[in-house]
């Protein structure tokens, strides 16, 4: 912008005069906090003495506080959420606070606690529903509450028909109350949500509790009114946005829109003709720790690969009482970002193919680590001719309008594993590789920031108070992937996965850590040159390999690198 433009803008304001009422400062009751006029500057001698004293006397205190923080606690009287991944987060426009629910603890068990973030500290709120997998939440501004969707967790046979859950306990360790009993008002087999007292001591790891058995594959929809949770719908899985769906609120149509893609994930492949879910042979149920509500994150591959690769994104809207499957589908594929786009006042859907993860392709996705498909099923190792594209769609209230389709070689973030939060005229994307991008007026801008959250998956990300973005936790150390054994049952999570408890705030210019401990990535494999001078291929962090263990080069089909 030229100076002339800036002068024009200034000129528009120049005729404004402060109203006479503002001159009554002497008789008006001051209701604002007043900052100091300058930064206090102590005399150097005094400052030096004090600095030495503080350094010596406070070292122990500092270390203790740091250790306490890294253990997942802060000095806040409201407590601090324990480490987790796959939690969901949304800004509650009614209360002006960000709400975080659920996720999975470090031991892989689902959490059922609810926390609110006021811009400075976390506070334990009502115990949430669940345990639920694949939780997703959105601010339903038209209804004045948060809408939560998640799958009920199947009973764990090893626990004798019950599922062991953690978090939200009313024990001395803090957290929120858990009745552990069936609900009189909630869905069958779902613990009764209750208001929990704020913990008096920092929450580190509440003891496990045994929850009542729940029916598997039931999609539950809950509403949070700022104080308590209320069940809104309990539906069969095919009657609600399925595993991996994303939610967003459309300010213009005042609809909550959900979009699910069957192009990857494959947990619920859809018939391209009828749109109905197709039963698929399971390679194994996803472990709780493998659920991941992060936008675009890679879910566990749960079906035989022949069922993958079906194109099309399915759309749902929330009527206030039930989910409606919209006839509108998007003939797109790939990794999606769905968000309330301030530039259009509509929900925007972006799909990106050809990402570094090898997802979003038209061909079947092989199980990570496996070069071959289960017997009798086809395997397509690559997809030649598939043009990497980013396609943008706008929700019109009854259908999708394609806005653009550009090669994803242009400057834009890789969607795989990315998280997005939209607010105040733009959207912010944090990629799995730690890049921060802004999307405004149809343009991407990579923010050059010095410090940012470390590489991770499954972080809960949402709008924060006062035009900020809040991030909590997540996991580092590799994807939770299905077993690489052909046709074997059960999925496994890498033993090197680390779960974080760190809180980060993006203020539009920089990320600032507000406590907690980041997930610790596994050591980068060293690639010692061979004697003949060749450098062996070095692919990503090791999976299921103990640190300091020699790493054999991985071959095709191995877990992809998180870096683009």
């Amino acid at each position, binding site marked *: 912008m030229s100076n002339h433009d800036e002068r024009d803008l200034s000129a528009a304001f120049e005729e404004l005069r402060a109203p006479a009422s503002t001159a009554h*400062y002497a008789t008006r009751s001051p209701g604002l906090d007043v900052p100091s*006029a300058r930064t206090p500057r102590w005399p150097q001698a005094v400052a030096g003495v004090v600095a030495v004293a503080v350094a010596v006397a406070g070292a122990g205190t500092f270390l203790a506080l740091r250790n306490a923080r890294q253990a997942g606690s802060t000095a806040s009287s409201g407590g601090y959420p324990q480490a987790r991944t796959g939690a969901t987060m949304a800004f509650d426009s009614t209360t002006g606070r960000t709400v975080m629910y659920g996720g999975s603890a470090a031991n892989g068990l689902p959490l059922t606690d609810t926390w609110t973030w006021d811009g400075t500290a976390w506070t334990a709120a009502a115990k949430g529903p669940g345990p639920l997998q694949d939780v997703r939440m959105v601010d339903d501004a038209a209804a004045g509450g948060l809408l939560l969707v998640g799958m009920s967790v199947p009973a764990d046979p090893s626990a004798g028909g019950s599922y062991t859950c953690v978090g939200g306990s009313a024990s001395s360790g803090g957290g929120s109350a858990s009745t552990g009993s069936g609900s009189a008002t909630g869905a069958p087999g779902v613990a009764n949500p209750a208001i929990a007292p704020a913990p008096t001591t920092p929450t580190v790891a509440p003891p496990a509790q045994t929850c009542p058995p729940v029916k598997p594959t039931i999609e539950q929809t809950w509403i949070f009114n700022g104080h308590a949770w209320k069940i809104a719908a309990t539906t069969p899985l095919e009657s609600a946005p399925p595993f991996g769906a994303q939610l967003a609120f459309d300010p213009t149509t005042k609809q909550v829109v959900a979009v699910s893609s069957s192009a990857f994930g494959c947990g619920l492949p859809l018939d391209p003709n009828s749109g109905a879910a197709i039963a698929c042979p399971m390679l194994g149920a996803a472990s709780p720790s493998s659920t991941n509500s992060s936008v675009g994150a890679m879910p566990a591959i749960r079906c035989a690969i022949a069922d993958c690769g079906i194109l099309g994104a399915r759309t749902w809207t929330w009527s206030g009482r039930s989910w409606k499957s919209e006839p509108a589908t998007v003939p797109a594929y790939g990794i999606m970002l769905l968000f309330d786009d301030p530039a259009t006042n509509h929900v925007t859907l972006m799909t990106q193919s050809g990402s570094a993860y090898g997802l979003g392709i038209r061909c079947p996705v092989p199980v990570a680590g496996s070069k071959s498909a289960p017997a009798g099923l086809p395997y397509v190792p690559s997809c030649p001719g598939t043009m990497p594209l980013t396609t943008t769609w706008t929700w019109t209230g009854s259908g999708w309008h394609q806005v653009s389709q550009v090669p994803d070689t242009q400057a834009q973030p890789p969607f795989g594993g990315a998280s997005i939060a939209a607010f105040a005229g733009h959207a912010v994307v944090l990629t799995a590789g730690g890049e921060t991008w802004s999307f405004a007026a149809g343009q991407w801008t990579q923010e050059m920031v010095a410090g940012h959250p470390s590489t991770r998956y499954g972080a809960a990300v949402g709008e924060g108070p006062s035009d900020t973005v809040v991030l909590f936790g997540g996991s580092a150390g590799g994807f939770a992937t299905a077993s690489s054994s052909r046709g074997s049952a059960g999925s496994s999570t890498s033993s090197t996965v680390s779960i974080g408890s760190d809180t980060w705030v993006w203020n539009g210019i920089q990320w600032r850590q507000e406590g907690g401990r980041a997930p610790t990535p596994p050591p980068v494999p060293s690639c010692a040159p061979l004697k003949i001078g060749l450098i062996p291929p070095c692919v990503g962090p090791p999976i299921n390999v103990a640190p300091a263990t020699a790493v054999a080069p991985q071959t095709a089909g191995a877990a992809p690198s998180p870096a683009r």
Partner: protein
Amino acid sequence: MIAAMTGIRLEGAVTPFDEVYRENADSVYRFCVSQLRDVETAEDITADVFAAAFAAYDRVHPDAAGVRTWLFRIARNAVIDQYRREGRRRSLLTRVGRDRVFPDTVEETAEQRTDIRAICAALDTLRERDRQLVGLRVAGGLSFAEIATVLGIREGAAKVATHRALERVRIRLREQA
């Protein structure tokens, strides 16, 4: 407090507050309008800013060079508090079409109202920090050094960030046109 109320300039004392008000009231008010997009709320916030500043003036003792940035720091905090009180509801109301920038009762020409309304609409689509940068620069009339002081950042960073924010405003205005 006595010096502030009487306007008597004592030796070593700071500028009388009535002079501070005269020199800064308009710019603080313009900044509040640019941030809040609501003249009535901006009037209230401006009045609060000067009432708070007046009450703390003798205690804080801002020097002549720093009083302006001190006022804008109060104003910025007040605007943030106002945003926090109203929350996203305000943004949503604006986005769904309830524009309340300038009612006809405001004594401005239609052309001026249109200009400011367009600028405020463009500002409202920016992130908070960008909105503050542009408001401090074009509505408050602050230098980059003063903006840096108000926001607690380096002058160079303030300059770069302000130019980027102004560029975004220009894009939005072009789109609106």
